[in-house]
């Protein structure tokens, strides 16, 4: 469902993503790991058609990110870093705006709203304006926004950052439940999360893809915990 082909992008002299290739099929949950500034966000932004790659390309659900950006965006649910949204809007009007943009009209809209609101358990803040919400609720609103059109591909940039342990657990459960029908990419710094939800791990450092394996395989190969493996691989350079 996702085919990344030699994707590269640099900002001035800094090479953020350097020649990355991988592919994913339905049912996979990919943990996108790497130290800060490794290029995870840049790579995800390119997949979500926000940034243009300098070279290389990728296909999402068969659509090219350069040629058919609109179709790609239709098939992706994207939660950007820090879950940006419009502060002055209420949660309800924000989600309705997303439905407007995604051309989800009644009667499907009501169902979609119902489902997304329930999944992310934001019923209690539905009529509150987003600027009054706590960090955790904001992120859940962002997640609801990404899920509302039931996309086949989900790209989540640090979806559990800033959540309390209960919320983290809920979000992980949510991702696990969806994983069979979808293709999900998650970037995170929480390695226990990777062990719980991810079926595959990619580690990048300085924009280069270093490891493409499974959590289990990686642990067995190095016979150490994921934490230690991560440190071993990323501290080498």
């Amino acid at each position, binding site marked *: 469902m996702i085919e990344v082909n030699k994707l590269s992008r640099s900002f001035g002299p800094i090479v953020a993503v350097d020649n990355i290739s991988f592919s994913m099929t339905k049912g996979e949950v990919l943990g996108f790991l790497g130290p800060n500034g490794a290029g995870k966000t840049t790579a995800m*932004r390119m997949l*979500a*058609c*926000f*940034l243009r790659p300098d070279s290389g390309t990728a296909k999402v659900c068969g659509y090219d990110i350069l040629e058919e950006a*609109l*179709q790609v*965006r*239709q098939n*992706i649910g*994207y939660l*950007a*870093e*820090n879950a*940006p*949204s*419009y*502060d*002055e*809007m209420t949660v309800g*009007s924000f989600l309705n*705006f*997303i439905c*407007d*943009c*995604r*051309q989800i*009209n009644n009667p499907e809209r009501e169902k979609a709203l119902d489902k997304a609101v329930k999944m992310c358990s934001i019923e209690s803040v539905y009529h509150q*304006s987003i600027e009054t919400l706590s960090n955790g609720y904001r992120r859940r609103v962002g997640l609801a*926004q990404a899920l509302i059109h039931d996309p086949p591909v989900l790209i989540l940039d640090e979806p559990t950052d800033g959540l309390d342990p209960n919320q983290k657990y809920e979000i992980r459960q949510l991702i696990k439940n969806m994983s069979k029908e979808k293709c999900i990419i998650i970037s995170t710094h929480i390695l226990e999360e990777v062990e719980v939800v991810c079926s595959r791990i990619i580690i990048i450092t300085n924009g280069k893809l270093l490891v493409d394996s499974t959590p289990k395989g990686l642990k067995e190969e190095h016979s150490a915990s994921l934490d230690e493996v991560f440190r071993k691989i990323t501290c080498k350079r």
Partner: protein
Amino acid sequence: MNGSLAVFKRELKSYFATPVAYVFLVIFLFFSGYLPFRQGFFEIRQADMRLFFSNLPLLFVFMVPCTAMRLWSEERKSGSIELLLTLPITVSQAVWGKFLASWFFMIIALLLTIPMPITIIYLGNPDVGAMLTGYLGSFLMVGGFLAIGCFFSSITKNQVISFILSVTVLSILVYAGMPTTLNYLSSFLPAGMVSAIETMSFLSHFESIQRGVIEFKDIAYFILLIIGWIYACIVILNERKVS
């Protein structure tokens, strides 16, 4: 729903969800009413709105960038541009949606000055046609101002910078058409160049529409101005989406 329409609706609502719209409307309505009275609106004993319209360009030089500066700068600053431009809408749909919302807002502001023409019609026997073309001219002119503001808002995430840049460019385009500037320029520039500068300015086009003469060249000037600056805005946003 079309992407532009969705963005348009959201943008327009956001003006009224924050105090921005109300503060702006009050200040704008106060000055647009106060200035003509100061200049002798009643004393000249003429039933027309020339004094009202002649103050608009200078008022807009400062007021329009206030509404336009936030259009894209704020999106960049808060990061919501990443949300907006990863939704299945094109950059040009988003830009047009936002621009048209701000234009519509300014048209509402202008329409709220309606007590002025009503007073004149009640007191005297004015040329209603000229009033209508005056409003048409103001709508077009404010569209041009907004397009320029929208462009400068798209190049930076700092609202202050975007405000200053658009005020500067708008002042140049307004002052270039003032008689004093043209007199000065004609002292050392050839006549052809002076008239070229005059036709580049807002003022000559606005004044001829406001007098009741609707000419193709004046309408075309504003339409081309809007399309040109908005296109430049789309190009900028396509090239540079982050910061």
